[in-house]
């Protein structure tokens, strides 16, 4: 069965918030499966449920009903503690607002998930954190604090933090929302490189040109999937970045 290999498989996923007497249906019976190595963009107007879906996929939130299998594991049945371990080991999450610890060096920020790693043998945390930062091109910014870094650099620290545990799945909630065009392109180029190296990536965005960097596009409206189709003319962010005249946006 092809589905058994799916990184993500959700069925009838529903999330309802109760606000006073009225129930808000953020997500209604959504089915979706994502295969390893896919790069998928989720689009939709605000209120369409794309962030809710992302939080559920990232195990930050729990569904009201429905099933969610991550790497074949029934995540929807797990308790708080198990979900924390799933977030730690299987998922890298990148936020729109970076969510870095203030007054903490890039290295320490990237080291954070390693501190909560409970799996077996001891690892050289500093070495791994350094390697992750080198991979996102910040080898010379190890000891800078977030306030000393540009928005693009901060987002790359956040990506390094998402990568440091070497998860199979990278989730990004509006990763370019706070970035200008050039740095957005840089981040997308990084994502495409990671995707080519075999990482499954899901990203939420409301910008079409960002979504076109992905290989598959899912559009949400009113908590339901409106469209789910491959991207016809996929952008090559790496090539575009190479062709972009230096300092054009700065």
């Amino acid at each position, binding site marked *: 069965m092809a589905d058994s290999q799916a990184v993500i498989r959700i069925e009838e996923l529903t999330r309802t918030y109760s606000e006073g007497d009225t129930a808000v249906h953020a997500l209604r019976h959504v089915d979706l499966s994502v295969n390893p190595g896919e790069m998928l963009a989720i689009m939709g107007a605000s209120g369409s449920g794309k962030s809710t879906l992302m939080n559920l996929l990232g195990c930050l939130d729990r569904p009201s009903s429905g099933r969610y299998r991550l790497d074949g594991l029934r995540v929807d049945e797990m308790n708080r503690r198990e979900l*924390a371990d799933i977030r730690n080991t299987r998922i890298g999450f990148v936020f729109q607002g970076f969510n870095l610890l203030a007054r903490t060096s890039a290295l320490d920020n990237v080291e954070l998930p390693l*501190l909560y790693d409970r799996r077996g043998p001891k690892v050289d945390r500093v070495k791994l954190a350094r390697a992750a930062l080198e991979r996102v091109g910040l080898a010379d910014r190890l000891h800078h604090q977030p306030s000393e870094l540009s928005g693009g650099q901060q987002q790359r620290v956040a990506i390094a933090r998402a990568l440091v545990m070497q998860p199979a799945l990278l989730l990004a909630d509006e990763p370019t929302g706070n970035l200008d065009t050039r740095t957005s392109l840089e981040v997308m180029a990084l994502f495409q490189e990671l995707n080519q190296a075999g990482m499954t990536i899901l990203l939420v965005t409301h910008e079409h040109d960002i979504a076109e960097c992905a290989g598959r596009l899912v559009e949400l409206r009113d908590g339901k999937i409106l469209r789910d189709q491959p991207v016809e003319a996929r952008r090559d962010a790496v090539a575009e970045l190479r062709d972009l005249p230096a300092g054009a946006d700065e």
Partner: protein
Amino acid sequence: MNTLVLIRIALRSIRKNKTRTLLTMLGIIIGVAAVIVMVALGQGAKEQIRSRIDSLGSNLVVITPGASKSGGVSQGAGSMNRLTLLDAETLTRESMWLSSVSPLIVAPAHAVGGSGNWRVGVSGVSAEYATIRNWEVSAGRLFDETEVRAMRKVCVLGKTVVDNLFAEQDPVGQQIILRDVPFEIIGVLEPKGQTAEGRDQDDTILAPYTTVKTRLAGRQFIPMILGATDNKADVPAALTEAKAILRETHGLASYDDDDFTVRDQNELAETAEGATEVMTLLLAAIAGVSLLVGGIGIMNIMLVSVTERTREIGIRMAVGARGGDVLMQFLIEAIVMSLFGGLIGVAAGYGGSALLEKFTGWDTVITPQLVAISLGFSAAVGIFFGFYPARKAAALDPIEALRYE
């Protein structure tokens, strides 16, 4: 996830908020310092009382006449005095544990000599009395056993008597008339001060008990026999032994009650120390309240800190921190703060005690146990008052925490 990592996380967070940490610790610092100073003061008082009691003569065994019973009704101590000089002599001869024994006969006398006269109690004692009481002469000498046996009319004066009769002159070698009997003054006792009850111990004259008995008192029974052991540890054995010897000497049958009382100084010491113990506890309790207030201060700051750092907690949870990890982090932060505050408090307590001693002259004693207990208590305060805020942090929902602005 090991504790060491959590401690490092907590230390990092404390270092990032120096002012806040210091202000939080202030309550604990003051609390611990107060406890240390108060208890040190109490222990100092205890030590002082102990040394005063020891100055009465440590290793002391006191034998007094026992109470007689008339139809089952006790007539009170001394109501039937059967203590004799013979008892004292028997004890001197037979006791293995008592290294020195002295009877004590007190005869009130009108003393005339030097520049005036003075009413004083003349104590008839053996040559060993001074040893028993840890008493030495500041001038001249004490009488010896030969002089006791020979019933020599020699005496040693207490400081108060000397002050009243021989204000300007050296009394040694002079004569003093006690109840019309001339005695030669052979020495002056060094001043010993007042007893705990306020009696002037220096207002006395010591003379051989043989002389006092025949020349001044003439009574057959004596009010007290004093003895001393070489070591404090021997006192209980000496008590038992003295009892047995006296029962035999008095010819008591096994069903007879003792007609004498044998005591040691411990009873007096325990009573006095018990009183200071209560004082110390009271002082410590008052100081403990301030430590408690300091703990509430820590809780306040930790609660504020949890709110302020909601986002940080969200980030930690998003990358895989369990609720337990967050709980431990905040708990360790609270403990580290209160322990560190406790350490500074101990230092402040040492300083405060030294200052107090300098300015008031009161003795203070700081024992290692006191320091250990204070530190242990401050850590306990950290755990107790850190737990509620830490639990609040741990119970946060990751998505809510991340959204918090």
